[in-house]
């Protein structure tokens, strides 16, 4: 698949070679990080190093990083730990937040895909019950960045706690947990060049979190189970490189912006979701009205281009995106939207090939590109 173009970095990002090398080294050694012998201590040192790198990724203290088996587990851990609180989530949260609490209340978003802060204030004011507010830092389908610091200010004024799912944002934009002023922040390794199967909950200093898994008391009793030492080491290395690489985000954004500009030239009726607001540098969600996303995906796959129609998790079922629906998109737009997500392996000609293939498709299939008289 060397010729193919991978533009689905929000589903998973190829691993950084340095992270692979670090993991290969750990996997060639032996050691349970809880063992007191030399092998165990070496494993423990790997964890400590990675913990420091992940803390630096989000501007937190090393001791406040709790590793997990991924972003979904991390989000579930936070929500299940808050089971006595009223849970308020934005309408565009990932399923691992939306569905982790059975009776969550939903805050609407604007047509641009940004959380409605006034609605949040009203909901918090409506009841004095202690709440947990969950707002992601950047949306996985549109890349729209949420005003999390504002959310935290409003929520804290109402004595609520704040959880921020930063899975898609981490490594793509700078994160300073102290400035965001959130109580819980969650990250995933495989969205930033680390391995699948590792994530973390990062806590405000001295913030309690209920153990999501019970057992041997690893992670200071906050998450039991033998630590995935190799995976965590890979996460640490990837986090470090992602931070070092943040200055290249502007170039990636320029590539994305040029792509959107080129698409708009070909297709004046193309719609960019969240295009008027602040987004991640790498993400674009584009509707080709009148052409089903599945049709576009098949054609693009034949052309060797990998993109997606939204979240990867929906286990095969083509269901309308709750994110786009929350933004007030109509069914035609929602059914014709593609997510294009760039990353550290993306070159200018990859984007060029996508624009070419997408444009061909548009000219062939889009109702808007064909004069009505051709219908005969």
């Amino acid at each position, binding site marked *: 698949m060397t010729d193919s173009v991978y533009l689905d970095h929000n589903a998973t990002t190829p*691993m950084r070679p340095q992270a692979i090398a670090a993991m290969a080294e750990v996997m060639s050694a032996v050691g349970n990080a809880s063992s007191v012998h030399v092998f165990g201590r070496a494993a423990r040192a790997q964890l400590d190093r990675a913990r420091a790198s992940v803390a630096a990724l989000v501007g937190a203290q090393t001791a406040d990083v709790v590793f997990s088996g991924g972003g979904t587990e991390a989000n579930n851990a936070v929500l299940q730990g808050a089971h006595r609180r009223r849970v308020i989530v934005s309408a565009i949260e990932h*399923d691992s937040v939306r569905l982790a609490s059975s009776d969550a209340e939903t805050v609407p978003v604007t047509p641009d895909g940004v959380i409605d802060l006034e609605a949040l204030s009203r909901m918090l004011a409506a009841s004095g019950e202690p709440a947990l507010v969950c707002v992601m830092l950047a949306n996985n389908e549109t890349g729209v960045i949420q005003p999390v610091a504002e959310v935290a200010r409003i929520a804290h004024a109402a004595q609520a706690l704040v959880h921020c799912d930063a899975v898609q944002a981490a490594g793509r934009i700078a994160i300073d947990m102290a400035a965001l002023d959130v109580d819980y922040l969650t990250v995933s390794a495989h969205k930033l060049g680390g391995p*699948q199967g590792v994530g973390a909950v990062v806590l405000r200093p001295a913030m309690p979190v209920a153990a999501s898994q019970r057992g041997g008391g690893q992670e200071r009793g906050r998450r039991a189970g033998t630590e995935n030492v190799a995976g965590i080491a890979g996460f640490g290395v990837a986090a470090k490189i992602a931070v070092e690489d943040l200055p290249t985000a502007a170039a990636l954004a320029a590539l994305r912006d040029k792509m959107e500009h080129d698409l708009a030239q070909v297709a004046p009726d193309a719609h960019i979701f969240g295009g008027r607001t602040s987004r991640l540098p790498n993400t674009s969600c584009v509707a080709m009205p009148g052409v089903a996303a599945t049709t576009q995906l098949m054609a693009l796959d034949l052309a060797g281009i990998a993109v997606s129609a939204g979240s990867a998790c929906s286990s095969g079922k083509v269901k309308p995106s709750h994110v786009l629906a929350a933004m007030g998109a109509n069914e035609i737009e929602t059914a014709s939207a593609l997510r294009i997500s760039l990353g550290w392996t993306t070159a200018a000609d990859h984007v060029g090939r996508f624009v070419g293939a997408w444009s061909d498709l548009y000219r062939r299939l889009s109702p808007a590109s064909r004069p009505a008289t051709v219908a005969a």
Partner: protein
Amino acid sequence: MNAINGLRRNDQPIYLDYQATTPMDPRVLDAMMPYFTTKFGNPHSRSHSYGWEAEEAVEKSRAQIGKLIGADEKEVIFTSGATESNNLAIKGVAHFYKERKNHIVTLVTEHKCVLDTCRHLEQEGFEVTYLPVQQNGLVDLERLREAITDKTVLVSIMAVNNEIGVIQPLKEIGALCREKKVFFHTDAAQAVGKIPLDVEEMNIDLMSISGHKIYGPKGIGALYVRRKPRIRLVALIDGGGQERGFRSGTLPTPLCVGLGEACEIAMKEMGAEAARLQTLRDRFLNSIQAKLPDIYVNGDLAQRIPGNLNISFAYVEGESLMMGIKSLSVSSGSACTSASLEPSYVLRALGVEEELAHTSLRIGFGRFTTEQEVDTAAEDIARHVSRLRQMSPLWEMVQEGVDLKSIQWAAH
């Protein structure tokens, strides 16, 4: 103390802690590597070949795991490890069936994550019976039969104990559970790939599997969940609905591949490897018994995986022994509780006196253990035990013929 320095090796110590974790088999690592590099797709991506390729690898691995335990691939759910599998099996069943039944039976010698999960359920209002074990570490089937009531939903009994390596009578437990119409969960983290397991023959309804105990990677495990008749679970982790809704979250393709490959290798090599380990273990035990009086093997020696020994060296502190023998990596019990100096609750459950329990070492042999390592280990341990005993006033008293009646050593 110069004697210790004289024994120090410059190279790595000998690894004899295979129940804590195992080194990865290089063949497993080889199988995994392409899925870190070129085949990096998200296995849940349905719109391109990167995703399909990853999914295919995950499904192949699921079949490899199923085959090793006589299960259908559809009955295998990936988790982040055996701790999660145990949490999911026990909490999942308890929560799903709580309207009808609220009682769980388990053993006092289970792994901490099973016991801790059960204690948590007790706080929620469930009832749990923690059955004692016999002096050899095995469950008393009659007591088990008596413990099961019409409120019992689940029996959770480990296949192989992590500290003493004893194999529970799974087939008999399974038959009893089937007769009583109770679900049978077994934590098989230490058993899979070490002894033959068959979920049909043993009537096992749920089985927890670990990657890193069978020469696979850390951070991956599996839970076997019977489909006929169907076992229902409440998920611990919600989200994208992966793993048929039992366990949301992106599957780590390379880790899944690693677990599958580890199972495939175990399937092929289990028989020969068990015979080899048995020989090594006998060699070690014979050697150490010839060199040292007053040592006791904890747990049944016959009903035991070949790669485990747990020995009490009377009159010698296990911790000082462990710290003294820098040339060996062994443990005084479960890795999870290594940092604590409490005597092992498993040994205490066998009736081993606290003092004797403190003198115990868990010695684990595995795929990469050599005859030479075993010989060196036996010599080093014997030398250190003799030296420490020379410094022990208790040992001195015993040698002088003083009857230490106040200490009741358990017989083995």
